[in-house]
């Protein structure tokens, strides 16, 4: 896992396409070390970028960010890694946001999840239970999601039906295997998610 920020970010920005286009957010969620950054790096057409979000324990108004006010507040930073994928024709630009999705960062999570097409949840068969928290958060937001089992060289053999049962997935939630280092494999996971988002649009939403 290499979620450390790059030492020297490319100072030359990669600009967006000139013409009219829409920008769509997709979350890549899952516990630390599950391969989120790898998947984003595989899919992104720009060097992956990194920013932090700062949270104070008094997540109140902006007045609390005053110099004095900040001193005795606990601050936490949450890393967001993201990449960008422009679809052929330059009419749609996808943003892939990597997020661990932990409940203690709930206020931040609300902002990250807002408006997203859906979430791709990466899981590791050696520690499936670590994915429950983020799946709960996603379900609570009503965000469509698909689950991708990231295949590590040393992962044990797994049976997708057993994984589905252990994760207690709804029958229509897509469950795929994915090698986060491979473009087509990662694309297939996004395709499964997008098809699912389309299928569930209009069914459950407001």
């Amino acid at each position, binding site marked *: 896992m290499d979620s450390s920020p790059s*030492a*020297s*970010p490319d*100072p030359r*920005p990669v*600009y*967006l396409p*000139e013409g009219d286009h*829409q*920008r*769509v*957010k997709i979350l890549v969620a899952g516990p630390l070390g599950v391969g989120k950054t790898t998947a984003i790096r595989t899919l992104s057409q720009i060097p992956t*970028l*990194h*920013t*932090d*979000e*700062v949270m104070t324990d008094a997540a109140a108004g*902006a007045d609390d*960010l005053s*110099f004095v006010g*900040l001193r005795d507040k606990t601050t936490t*930073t949450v890393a*967001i890694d*993201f990449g*960008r*994928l422009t*679809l*052929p*024709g330059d*009419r*749609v630009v*996808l*943003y892939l946001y990597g997020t661990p999705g932990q409940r203690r960062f709930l206020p931040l999570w609300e*902002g990250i999840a*807002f*408006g*997203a*097409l859906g979430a791709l949840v990466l899981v590791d068969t050696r520690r499936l239970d670590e994915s429950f928290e983020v799946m709960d958060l996603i379900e609570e937001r009503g965000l469509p999601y698909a689950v991708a089992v990231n295949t590590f060289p040393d992962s044990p053999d797994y049976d997708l039906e057993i994984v589905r049962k252990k994760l207690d997935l709804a029958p229509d939630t897509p469950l795929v295997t994915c090698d986060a280092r491979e*473009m*087509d494999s990662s*694309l*297939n996971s*996004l*395709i499964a998610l*997008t*098809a699912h*988002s*389309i299928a569930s*649009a*209009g069914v459950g*939403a*407001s």
Partner: protein
Amino acid sequence: MSRGQHQRRLLPAYLATGAGSAPLPSTLDTLTALRASGVPLAAYHTPVHRRVVELVSGGSLTAVEIAAYLSLPASVGLMLAEQLVSDGLLKASVPIPDALAPSRAGRPSLQLMEEVLNGLQSLRVA
């Protein structure tokens, strides 16, 4: 302020937006695209404001990308962008023009998601 590209910024993030400004809840999204309008900076703008304007003088970037390039927290990037849009120095364009319809809660439309699906499929090699 900028003694070296690779040094950590010397100005705390919460001061980057300048003293005395009263930030409002942001109307910008992290995926709002921004580009310099050509309006010059005023005396009250901070060096960080200048860096934002310079960064998007050659093309458009989203607020979250601006934050990342300038090593600022995303919320500070949004706040800076918001100030500069209201001062007329940046032009903003929303990520999905019709997403603010009440029924949609910011989500992409069916048509847009189908465009995403087709685009992803056409990127596959095999």
